[in-house]
């Protein structure tokens, strides 16, 4: 049985940032505004959600305009648990910042979903 990579860190071992770090690689050819990242043990679940939140980034100058020129993900081979994500940003926007912000947004969204779901469920159960 292969141990579930996604839960490994929280369930068996102490949280070890070094383990999490080793699951990420910056692929060759990265610059400040264009980079590809490779994540081990991730798939469409995180890939697509992350792609979406990253594409939502806006910058406010005169008008709100997108920060991200391109963001896409791929699973290079179906039998390898790897996910690549490519981000290209407009001038003056750092790809690493965008990725970090995207992950933070995802975490925040999850909190909102949990909170609203619990409220709705409790109300529904009380009304039954």
């Amino acid at each position, binding site marked *: 049985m292969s141990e579930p990579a996604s839960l490994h860190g929280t369930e068996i071992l102490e949280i070890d940032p070094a383990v999490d770090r080793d699951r990420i690689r910056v692929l060759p050819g990265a610059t400040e505004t264009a980079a590809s990242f490779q994540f081990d043990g991730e798939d469409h*679940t995180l890939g697509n959600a992350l792609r979406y939140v990253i594409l939502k980034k806006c910058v406010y100058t005169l008008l709100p305009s997108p920060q991200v020129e391109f963001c896409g993900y791929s699973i290079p081979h179906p039998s390898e648990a790897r996910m690549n994500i490519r981000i290209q940003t407009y001038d003056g926007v750092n790809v690493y910042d965008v990725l970090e912000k995207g992950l933070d947004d995802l975490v925040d969204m999850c909190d909102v979903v949990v909170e609203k779901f619990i409220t709705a469920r409790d109300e529904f159960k009380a009304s039954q």
Partner: protein
Amino acid sequence: MSQPSQEERRRRKLLTIGDERVANTASNDLPSLFPGEDMDFNLHEFKKNFNVQFHTSSAHDSTFSLTGLDTSLANAFRRICISEIPTVAIEDVYIMQNNGVMQDEVLAQRLGLIPLKGSPSGLRWLRWYIKPSPDDPDAFVTPPSDHNVVVMKLNVKCEWREGGLQLAAKGETDPDKLYKNHAVYAKHLKYVPTGKQEEMFKDGPIEAVHPDILITKMRPGQELDLMVHAMKGIGADHAKFSPVATASYRLLPTIDITSPILSAEAKKFARCFPKGVIALAPVTTEQSRKDPALKDHEGELHAVVSDPMRDTVSRECLRHDEFKNKVKLGRVRDHFIFSVESTGQWESDELFLESVRLLKVKAQRVRRGLGELMK
């Protein structure tokens, strides 16, 4: 900053369904698509738009609507429900005796698929068991112990009933009258608590969710004596670990009647949909005054949409020429009607919550690794 009109917003939200094609399917709330509009991700905005509405909720079956979120997120929750929420299932089978007709490996496979249940707090307390791998003897393993392996035993022997032989000689064929224990059920699996499990599963011992799952059949003289090790795993590894029978979503259907459908036609129109989707209502005075198409039709029955959620979007109405130009079918892009059906180890609403928590854990881990990488 430009703001799209209410009508434009609605148009963007709808997938249009024609008789042979589905259009406008891709997400379009991205800033690169509509320059000048503010589409930045904003938690406050998300909080305002996101909504949950429950439809039904029982222990093992829930349906609810999530509105105001993107497909990528809804799909992530669905995928995690199916393949990443851990459950306990039978993994190793140690067979001491099996002289029935079912082969050992077939029997083992059947045992693995039996859904188990037990005290939720106990199941949460259980840790992962990491098997030694044959190709890498130095790999990290956790020895089987009370905190990662659940032991169960199955010991059943089939015998003749009192006077069964005589009955058989007389021509009786009903196995219930002839033999004892001729059918082995999931309820015959007996939990053997070890170590701390005694305490952890005090109020909910491990047992099969459905006691009457037939495992195998036997005849007098045949015997089954085996021990199983059940352990935590995830659906990505094997379907027996998947906590859901199905976790799925569909988009809310919409039906727009663009010009009135009256009397006999209305009845035919209603029959194109499942019961309850289309209702027949008399045209009111006000309607006939306001709508030129309804003039002089006061009191006549016309078709009105009453419950689009029940529609299966069979598109039957588009097959009839008389309705083709009178109705527009669609689906709402950000209204997901979830249905989560648990196999019994988890409560169905807890399953969804767990899937959201797991997505958060995933994002946090990558975030942590990235922070470390940037140092």
